[in-house]
């Protein structure tokens, strides 16, 4: 095509149609006599149900809690591990447990016709898990192997180093047990931990799917109403404020990339600054069409998947900026990162940048609510922070109202590069000198 033909054919991008209001699904909630909160949400699109059970687990012994999550379904006084799995499978279901520093989370799904059976099996496990010796021994070694593999992955190693740097002596600082700690865990300790912490008192059960909310609450009450309250819960002190420190260089000899990680301060979802901070983070590096991604990927080609996210834990929130960059461009990639943070912290963004980020934030709320699994995830995350899905509508209104000045203020307060706490995991010999030209660095001790 010649130039004039191209000009003659110029087409303009069509405008968006009218916005659809955020519409919350039908739901019901009940607190059972044993303290368990049950939330049931209707999305009938496919004949399935999603299940999430959120049990507070802060301050639990790390290795024991990690192994408990891995062995919760290994047997009850009624059924073996294989029988439990087969029974769940026969109604198209599956259940598994996972751990983070705040909670034990049971995640599952199945055909909605099997909801009663899934809840019944869940109750059996919650009230009579046995932690059989042989199964615990097997899972202990599997967990040890998983940790050994994780410790060979740069993403994991960089995260371990960053968490220590962020949280210092707070329990959040260490989120993976050592292999030795795992190997020391005995079945009796798992039973004791279960007895103490796997309790309904402050737990939340979320059910989402092709269900009638009130009937689903009844089903949950029938199945789990006898799960005895008791034990104890524990809360964490607030996470410490980030303290600016030199960048930590962690050696990974021969690494062909450097894993760059930066933490910055953030606020919880309910804080008045949160919507502005979310938009500021999007404009900086929180989505593809951000300054940082367009710079270090689409302009410079330093990296493949840079991203910046706000991470929320109960006792503190953090912005985490992450990119894996070719070893030879470590210093220039860091320079561009600090430049983009600094630019946003010291100059207001353009109106169109804010509008684009705002539309993205609002639209992805809609997308997140459009599947059973998405709704279940959101409802659970919110419930863990004491919120309900109705918070979405409130938050959407906040996003819609944020002004340019508020975004600029949030960027100056939270995204200032002077507040950055950073880790560079890579080939120390090749990166220390170039990076030292830009910022103070400190090398990690061997083995830390």
């Amino acid at each position: 095509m010649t130039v004039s033909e191209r000009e003659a054919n110029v087409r303009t991008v069509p405008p968006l149609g009218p916005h659809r209001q955020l519409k919350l699904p039908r739901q019901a909630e009940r607190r059972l006599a044993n303290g368990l909160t049950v939330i049931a949400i209707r999305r009938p699109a496919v004949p399935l149900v999603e299940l999430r059970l959120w049990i507070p687990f802060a301050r639990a012994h790390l290795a024991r809690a990690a192994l408990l999550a891995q062995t919760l379904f290994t047997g009850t006084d009624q059924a073996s591990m294989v029988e439990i799995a087969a029974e769940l499978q026969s109604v198209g279901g599956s259940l598994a447990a996972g751990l983070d520093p705040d909670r034990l989370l049971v995640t599952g799904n199945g055909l909605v016709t099997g909801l009663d059976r899934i809840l019944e099996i869940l109750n059996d496990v919650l009230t009579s898990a046995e932690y059989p010796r042989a199964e615990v021994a097997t899972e202990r070694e599997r967990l040890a192997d998983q940790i050994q593999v994780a410790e060979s992955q740069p993403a994991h190693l960089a995260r371990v180093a960053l968490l220590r740097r962020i949280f210092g002596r707070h329990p959040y600082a260490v989120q993976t047990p050592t292999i030795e700690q795992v190997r020391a865990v005995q079945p009796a300790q798992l039973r004791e931990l279960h007895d103490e912490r796997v309790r309904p008192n402050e737990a939340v059960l979320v059910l989402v799917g092709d269900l009638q909310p009130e009937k689903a609450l009844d089903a949950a009450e029938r199945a789990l109403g006898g799960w005895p309250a008791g034990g104890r819960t524990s809360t964490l002190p607030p996470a410490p404020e980030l303290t600016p420190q030199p960048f930590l260089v962690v050696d990974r000899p021969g690494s062909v990339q450097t894993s760059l990680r930066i933490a910055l301060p953030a606020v919880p979802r309910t804080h008045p600054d949160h919507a502005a901070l979310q938009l500021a983070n999007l404009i900086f590096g929180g989505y593809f069409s951000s300054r940082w991604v367009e710079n270090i990927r689409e302009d410079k080609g330093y990296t493949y998947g840079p991203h910046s996210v706000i991470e929320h834990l109960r006792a503190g929130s953090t912005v985490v900026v992450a990119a894996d960059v070719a070893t030879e461009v470590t210093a220039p990639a860091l320079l561009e990162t600090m430049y983009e943070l600094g630019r946003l912290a010291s100059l207001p963004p353009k109106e169109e940048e804010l509008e684009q980020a705002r539309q993205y934030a609002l639209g992805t709320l809609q997308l997140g609510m459009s599947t059973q699994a998405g709704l279940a995830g959101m409802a659970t995350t919110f419930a863990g922070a004491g919120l309900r899905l109705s918070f979405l509508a409130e938050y959407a209104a906040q996003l819609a109202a944020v002004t340019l000045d508020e975004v600029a203020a949030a960027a100056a307060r939270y995204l200032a590069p002077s507040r950055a706490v950073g880790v560079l995991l890579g080939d120390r010999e090749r990166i220390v000198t170039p990076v030292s030209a830009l910022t103070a660095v400190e090398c990690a001790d061997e083995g830390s």
Partner: protein
Amino acid sequence: MARKLKIPTTRYPVERFTLDNGLRVVLAPDRTAPVIGVAVVYDVGIRSEPEGRTGFAHLFEHLMFQGSENLEKLAHFRYVQGAGGTFNGSTHLDYTDYFETLPSNALERALFLEADRMRGPRLTEENLRNQVEVVKEEIRVNVLNRPYGGFPWLKLPPVMFQTFPNAHDGYGSFEDLESATVEDAADFFRRYYASGNAVLAVAGDVDVAEATTLIERHFGDVPARPAPPRPDFGEPDLTEERRASYVDRLAPLPAVAAAWRVPDPIAEFDAYLPYVVLAEVLTDGEASRLVERLVLRDRIATDIGSYLGFLGEPFAVRDPTALLVQAHLPPGGDADRVLRVIDEELDRIATDGLAPGELARTQARMAAHLLRENDAVLGRALQLAVLEQQRGEPTLLNELPRRIGEVTEEQIRSAAATLRPQRRASIVVEPGAGR
């Protein structure tokens, strides 16, 4: 044992039509949420890239995001995300897809964006060099800088296959990537990114009549180009066992993967489907054959998984393909023993059949998995597009849970009986970390 469970299905209405320029269109309206999934699938993938150009199909996928006839570089991303949507693309053995999930008020915008790049991407030297660097970082982060990188999807095909299309590294060598030219890209586009070689699928909150009008408006004048003839990538089956191993200098523990050829997923669908179910009988959950035996009882594997196709997409791959089993082993683990025990378990299925309820529960779980994928508009759009492209049968989406439910124990036994050591290709990862 519980009564036989009725396997549910979906009833998404599916509309199909073809534009004058040969573009095939599939619409699946579902107004349960105000979102849409839009997918454009081109019938070209890793198997079609020329010798000396390993990784080119994937590199070209990146170039399709670098601006198009009416859009500057970066504009595509900004228009999608500025409408509240997300996007991506991915390169497979037999196809390449481009897709967006968006609030439904952005339907026309998404159609415009896809039509614009179907007319032609902006292929410039600068964008090509930039994306070669990005792809190299992608390969570093996913393969070179991590343990088990490319295992087994890049490591096993060269053991199993002998022709370039099936055997080569689909991520590509740095040498091939760096020598790619703008002219190569223009040729690749002309040949493979033809309207007649593409399928557009839209799922979710759309009105069929309105969507049809918009699709005609935006795609109707995309110049007509026919689909190129599809080469035959067929290869004879293995007549003797093939084995290989390599040292992964970052891996702390051994691993092994094995593969057997399976019937043509399209031409012999009825014969193929039992293998899809067999893979789940083998490794879906703690009650499955191989997990129970190798992980829980013998403790000779830390985890084990079985699936169809090197990218694990049983209904989006053409012949030749394989059933794979991959296992990670504990320290000092013996890969030969793992392979022997897998053989033993396959023998047991072939000889003794399945336990009561074993097949039905596997089928129930598979139905739940399929329904769950379909709950997301994008999952539906992508699968509809590929089913249309490879089979001309998008409604198979609604029928799959039932078809899987109809597979019989006898068919599973027969399938298991074909997975013999002399038809097997395997690859062992030797741990090199700390050496």
